[in-house]
């Protein structure tokens, strides 16, 4: 455990725990920060801030008791299934909950935690703590009596401790640990040697590796993006098309409140007209009674409705996404429409003629809506987390790139960005304006997901409205692409060959201005920037970083059982993740992974849930979600991974992010 996060954080006073030596762990408590049991009534403030060291400590406890052989070994599965009863069972874990001052017993670390097991629709189960009772690890409490007092005091004054502790320092790290600790320790403890032997062999099983023949949840997902042919005039093929239509996992519909179809991801007008009529009737009925319809379920299909002025948006999903997630997808479609028309134009169209056919004004942007919709259907971490991903670069390298942009800046520039395959390399912006992630999502969708702009093969001048910035007017965006694999100078032509390289390899320079006549000025700036970047070597650095791709989890934490993770930094509204390779390559594995993340995300973000840590076990994977004021973290491992190993891996990843923070995220950015 020497390498545990705790040790490395020595500057914060009580962070140092010697997990192995349970007797010494007490030092921490003298400062009253770690805590033990917290009564049911006090809570969130404390464990909201759960963090790294916590995990280390957790692991520690686990091992301690392992060595002690204190508890009789039990097979893990039954144990897990009992979890829900724990809080009510006398004795056992619950005792500690009643006796916060429990001292000398290095028993099960903790807890006044209420644990519930939740079954997801797909058959997986998740264990989580309820908001009602929060706990903190006792792991640090297996110690000297002296430490008790401060702890006791702390537990009675949960908020006091928080007021005095800095968010960034030890405080968050130490607290909330309990959640993880309590969740993660006993199960492992309970494994018989035989079980351990068995599972150590099976540790190498990857998520979703075992083929589950009963699981038909994503059957034929490969066909999801196939186009449905138009209904032929004689209607002869309608039945067949309807079958295809119904086989889709996901539909997005947009219609006007007057019932005119505006957009449908699948099927042509003849196919969807009937449905549009039905859905319009349903929505209008509820609208009429001033009780708007938000969503409903039919069989395994969830319908979610989002109403924006004169527009009705409907998402129909069999992928198990939450209402909030679907609604945010619909909002993104609405933003795309605004981006084409601006809000005043849209309002004007409908106030003049309520039965306006919006398809005409939106002509040509269907592909943008569809690529946005498909991004959601494929599963996009960026959309899920409402955050951006950055290209990993050294801080000094990014600094040089930022400065190059700043130096070449022209008068008319509003935002300048360099983007590599949907990952942000550098941004310059005016001091007063930040860039809204939802706006960037629209831009990235247009440039990297939809093929239209890239396929044009030239430089582009695109009028667009960025609703997050200002939904009332247009901005003008200069775009030119460079390929990461294109090392030669291409002189005056700077275009990509259509379709020749994947989106991941495309580097784009985006210069945004409020001035519609500033194309040549921004083009000049682009030329200056690119030649300067080439001169100072930054271009090669960017290209190399793009070619290198994302690191794999094994590169980040050697030997870890984690197979993938998402880490979102809340403050920076950015996320980082490892490569999908080699475990989640391809459409289907990626969708399964995203289903899992969607579930975790939905649980963590459920209304009124104060859920901070979620450990979810299913037949084909084990996953963990962890939410703190600083970050959201989601990870997944194979079905046989132990909680301890997941916790350990998660801990390591978070340490890695901390260490690489200024590389994986753009902090501050360049401002003028």
């Amino acid at each position, binding site marked *: 455990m020497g390498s545990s996060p705790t040790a490395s954080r020595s500057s914060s006073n009580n962070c140092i725990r010697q997990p192995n030596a349970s007797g010494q762990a007490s030092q921490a408590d003298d400062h009253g920060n770690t805590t033990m049991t917290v009564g049911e009534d006090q809570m969130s403030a404390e464990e909201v801030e759960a963090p790294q060291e916590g995990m280390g400590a957790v692991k520690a406890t686990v091992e301690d008791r392992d060595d002690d052989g204190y508890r009789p070994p039990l097979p893990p599965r039954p144990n897990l299934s009992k979890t829900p009863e724990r809080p009510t069972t006398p004795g056992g874990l619950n005792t500690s909950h009643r006796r916060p001052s429990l001292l000398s017993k290095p028993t099960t670390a903790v807890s006044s935690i209420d644990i519930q097991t939740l079954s997801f629709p797909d058959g997986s189960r998740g264990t989580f703590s309820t908001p009602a009772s929060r706990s903190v690890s006792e792991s640090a409490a297996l110690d000297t009596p002296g430490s008790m007092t401060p702890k006791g005091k702390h537990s009675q004054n949960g908020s006091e401790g928080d007021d005095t502790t800095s968010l960034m320092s030890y405080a968050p790290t130490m607290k909330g640990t309990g959640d993880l600790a309590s969740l993660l320790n006993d199960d492992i403890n309970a494994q018989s040697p035989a079980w351990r032997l068995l599972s150590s062999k099976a540790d190498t099983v990857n998520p979703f590796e075992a083929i589950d023949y009963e699981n038909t949840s994503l059957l034929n997902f490969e066909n999801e993006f196939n186009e449905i042919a138009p209904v032929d005039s004689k209607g002869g093929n309608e039945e067949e098309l309807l079958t295809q239509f119904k086989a889709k996992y996901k539909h997005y519909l947009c219609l006007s409140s007057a019932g005119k179809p505006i957009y449908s991801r699948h099927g042509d007008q003849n196919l969807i007209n009937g449905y549009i009529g039905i859905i319009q009737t349903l929505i209008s009925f509820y609208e009429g009674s001033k009780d708007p319809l938000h969503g409903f379920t039919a069989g395994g299909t969830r319908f979610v409705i989002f109403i924006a002025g004169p527009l009705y948006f409907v998402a129909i999903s069999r992928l198990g996404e939450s209402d909030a997630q679907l609604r945010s997808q619909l909002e993104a479609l609405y933003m795309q429409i605004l981006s084409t028309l601006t809000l005043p134009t849209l309002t004007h169209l409908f106030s003049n003629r309520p039965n306006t056919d919006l398809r005409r004004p939106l002509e040509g942007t269907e592909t943008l809506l569809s690529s946005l919709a498909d991004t959601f259907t494929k599963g996009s971490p960026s959309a899920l987390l409402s955050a951006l991903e950055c290209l990993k670069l050294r801080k000094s390298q990014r600094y040089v790139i930022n400065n190059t942009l700043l130096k070449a800046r022209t008068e008319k520039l509003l935002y300048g960005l360099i983007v590599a395959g949907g990952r942000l390399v550098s941004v310059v912006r005016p001091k007063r304006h930040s860039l809204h992630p939802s706006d960037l999502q629209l831009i990235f969708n247009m440039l990297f997901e*939809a093929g239209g702009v890239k396929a044009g093969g030239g430089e582009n001048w695109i009028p*667009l409205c960025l609703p997050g910035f200002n939904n009332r007017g247009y901005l003008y965006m200069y775009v030119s692409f460079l390929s990461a694999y294109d090392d030669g100078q291409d002189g005056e032509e700077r275009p990509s060959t259509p379709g020749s390289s994947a989106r991941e390899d495309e580097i784009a320079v985006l210069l945004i201005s409020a001035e519609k006549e500033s194309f040549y000025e921004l083009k000049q700036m682009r030329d200056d920037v690119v030649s300067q970047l080439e001169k100072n070597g930054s271009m090669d650095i960017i290209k190399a970083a793009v070619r290198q791709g994302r690191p794999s989890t094994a590169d980040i934490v050697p030997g870890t059982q984690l197979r993938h993770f998402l880490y979102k930094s809340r403050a920076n509204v950015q996320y980082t993740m490892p490569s999908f390779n080699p475990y989640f390559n391809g459409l289907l594995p990626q969708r399964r992974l995203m289903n899992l993340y969607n579930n975790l995300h939905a649980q963590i973000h459920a209304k009124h849930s104060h859920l901070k840590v979620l450990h979810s076990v299913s037949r084909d994977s084990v996953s963990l979600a962890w939410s703190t004021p600083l970050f959201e973290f989601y990870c997944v491992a194979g079905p046989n991974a132990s909680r301890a190993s997941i916790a350990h891996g998660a801990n390591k990843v978070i340490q890695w992010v901390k260490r690489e923070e200024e590389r994986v995220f753009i902090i501050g950015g360049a401002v003028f």
Partner: protein
Amino acid sequence: MAARGPGSRAGNSRFAQFKLVLLGESAVGKSSLVLRFVKDQFDDYRESTIGAAFLTQTISLDDSTTVKFEIWDTAGQERYKSLAPMYYRNANCAVVVYDITQASSLDKAKAWVKELQRQANENIIIALAGNKLDLVTEQPDKRAIPAADAEAYAREAGLLFFETSAKTSENVKELFTAIAKKLPLDQAGPRNPRSGPRAGVDLRPEAPGTQGAGACSC
């Protein structure tokens, strides 16, 4: 003179640079024509152009004459209409494209021609291109606009005329070459090097009929 196609004679060779704009209804194949001309490529399925794309292509008319086109490929949708003057304002030449299988697209093309003749550079050279010739070669009954009709209109309006196919590349090169030949190479001034397309801009007299708002020389 209006031509902002600065040309130069170094020894024997002439070089001139001209601004060309493509206009026409959406989905008639403007981008496909440009892509064929600039990169000699063709995609069966193309997404609509968003905004406008800027490309360049250089052609040799003969051993000693090189013409560089700076091409504005505009989006055909109605909502981009108000931006069009920005693209044709200083253009030396324009290609107005219609789809020979869509009758309405020629009407739209005529409207563009009218607008160009009224608002653009008075010496602008306009070519009318009836695209998707390949469709008609395969199925003659698909043709909606007889070549003779369009040609008669072109003659009357003083336009160059070609029926083209971006798919088979038929007449594409010919179209642009014919435009290049018609451009006033000889009056061109010294070449203005890279520094800018902007720098050597012409500055045609502000004729009374020109776009009010668009008159700025951005």
